[in-house]
């Protein structure tokens, strides 16, 4: 273990949903049997984005909004690594929105775990792209008027390999979703995690999520795009959690001739 690590105590508020995500991630990584030496956690900037520092793995904690392209570069350089992006809703869908669109299209083999607290935590409570209509903040003084971004629906439209939603209110569910995402070999995996921010989001609280989360019926066929989209469009009194959509298509790496043999980095080392 790196010395200095011991100093690194989570800088989150007591009661923050990020603790549950961190703990569950540790369990999921263990359960999925992932070699931590081959694990790279990539993040942008935000409360969620601090997570990589609190676990034992390789870390690339880059720029706000830019986790996905960085993860893409790492994956291309060494596709034997497992790439997990842990980022906030602002990071991934606000500043990083364009990369989100295109990383899914590209189908790069990255798992994106989005801590979706529907607010900008680190910068003290402004609205995020997923904030509810009417959400009042010091900037959105009359409440949010922009329709919330629907990351799941976009990912489904773009035929993403794995699209799921979970929440911190059911750590068992969350762990299973993480393990399933980690097991995905096809390409991009999106796991949107509803996460209470106890300090700045007084609307979408732990209880609010808990009361609304509805596990998706076992009978749901995740390869059915239309049904998946219908689930993705649901929000309100009932919020479907579980695997909404799956698709079988080759990952970007599998499509790249230069990656057919050794990894790029191994090609150099071999010389």
């Amino acid at each position: 273990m790196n010395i200095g690590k011991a100093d690194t105590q989570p800088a989150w508020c007591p009661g923050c949903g990020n603790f549950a995500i961190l703990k569950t991630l540790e369990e999921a990584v263990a359960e999925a049997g992932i070699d931590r030496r081959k694990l790279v956690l990539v993040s942008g900037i935000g409360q969620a984005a601090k997570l990589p520092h609190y676990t034992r793995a390789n870390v690339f904690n880059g720029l706000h909004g830019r986790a996905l392209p960085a993860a893409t570069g790492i994956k291309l350089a060494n596709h034997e690594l497992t790439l997990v992006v842990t980022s906030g809703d602002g990071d991934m869908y606000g500043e990083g929105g364009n990369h989100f669109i295109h990383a899914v299209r590209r189908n790069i083999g990255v798992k994106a775990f989005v801590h979706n607290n529907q607010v900008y935590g680190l910068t003290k409570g402004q609205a995020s792209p997923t904030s509810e209509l009417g959400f009042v903040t010091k900037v959105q003084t009359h409440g949010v008027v922009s329709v919330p971004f629907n990351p799941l629906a976009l990912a489904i439209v773009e035929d993403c390999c794995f699209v799921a939603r979970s929440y911190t209110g059911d750590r068992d569910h969350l762990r299973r979703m993480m393990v399933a995402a980690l097991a995905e070999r096809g390409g991009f995996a999106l796991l949107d995690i509803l996460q209470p921010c106890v300090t700045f989001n007084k609307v979408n609280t732990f209880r609010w999520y808990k009361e609304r989360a509805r596990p998706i019926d076992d009978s749901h066929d995740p390869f059915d795009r239309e049904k998946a989209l219908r689930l993705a469009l649901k929000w309100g009194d009932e919020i479907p959690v579980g695997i909404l959509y799956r698709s079988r298509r080759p990952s970007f790496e599998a499509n790249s001739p230069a990656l057919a043999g050794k990894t790029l980095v191994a090609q150099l080392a071999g010389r």
Partner: protein
Amino acid sequence: MDINVRVAGEAGQGVLTTGNLLVGALAGLGLHVLSSQSYMSRIRGGLNWFDVRIADEELFSPRRTADLLVALTPPARDILAEDLTEGGMLLFDGAGGDGAVGIEFSRAAQEAAGSKLMANTVAAGAVFAVLGYDCGRLCGYLATQFKKKGDEVVAANVTCARRGAELAGTHAGRIPAPAPAAAPDYLCSGAEAIGLAAAAAGVKLVTAYPMTPSTPTFTYLAAVADRYGIVVEQAEDEIAAVNMICGAAYAGVPALAATSGGGFALMVEGLSLAGIMELPIVIVLGQRPGPATGLPTRTAQQDLKFALSAGHGEFVRAVFAPGTIQQCYELTRRALQTAHRFQTPVLILTDEFLQDLQKNVPPLDESPRPIDRHILEDPSPDYRRYEVTESGVSPRAIPGGEGFVICDSDVHNDCGNITEDLQTHLTQQDKRMRKLTGLTAEALPPQRYGPDDAGTLLLAWGSSYGPCREAVDALNAHGGSAAMLHFSQVWPINAAGARQLFGRPRRVISVEGNCTGQFASVLREAGLLEECELLPRYDGLPFTGEYIVSGVNG
């Protein structure tokens, strides 16, 4: 002696094809060739031209004037006629008269090969004839070029070339031209030399969002990607492009992004990221006139100061500005090496002029010779990415081994973990800045050309090497006393090296493709210069020897 052949017409008419055919075939004769381009930001129409200069000695610069103009449209004929030298000839694709020799290239192609598309081969044949070169050599060249496309295509091209020579033989006169000699037949453009050097040096990920004039480097690398084992990815935007190479650099492969000013503007935050994360990335910045979209297909040297200060916060960088095809190759390799030795971003400043410049040069080494990435093998479990060292350079491991590799865009401790401890911040900031000492010690000194005691010193950087060099020769040939001091590394400045080579000129003139004298002000800031004259050009066209000479003679 030298001759400038200019092919001009609309975009989409085959100006580029004809030009490239001529360059290749003429280089094949053992002549010294140098080609440059002038084109508009459109796919069809407008007025583009392609210059092929040929000589019996090495060439460094394009020329404003042409000795032989091949005009494919009336505007090409009318507008460019005034740049014809005395005794020059104008071949026009249509009816002759008014000083123009009419040869209907397209019609001839149609007749000879059943397709107007081969008009360019007809034109090449005509040019060969006018210059008195053996059309057989042109046909031989066509045969090798089109071999892959089959005998029929070769035969059609040969017919067209011969037809062109024939037509010129009857209609046109001759222009005295340099005799074929033994110049190398290895042709390369600046764009290709940069790409080739990157491929050979082991660059494994190349990203870009298309932008003139860096695109030719990008497409070159796409073309050779399979051969060298490179992933070439067109990013969704320049921000993605730079962050992708940051990721790849972290994971251990040399990576490069190519862009122009507007795209570079979008990469600036990523540059700062590479600064604090100490990632060896290289960005090729192909300059063109700005601000903003500006003149997409023209040339400029306007982004120097921007490149030197781009990025928030303070971090070290190196900036190279090659002046020749060979320097494009060598300095791209050096840029990659420097980035890896010092773990910091490095920029290569090129521009439309240099990117499109083609010349025959001694063969560049195409064999894969990966640079030393200075990677710590087998890091132990207590590996610390940002160990504090005297040189400022910490042993760099890559992820996948026993030691975790932790990188952070926030201020971090020696392990790479986020910290808000201000003493640690100072320690790490000082560590990073110490790399400047090493970078400066290894900075390339400028190169001096011309007599030691020259009264006039031309300061040049980047792509103006060739034009300045020809200007020095021309000035000295006419009783002047001029020299050039050319900087191919513009940051950090090797001040000691530069000071030595300054001499004691009466006049110092900074020759720059911008309107504010950016390099002069960099030298002033570095304490190397007080006042100096400025010889600027910022109309979008490249410097030429003549332009500089007349600027100096004022």
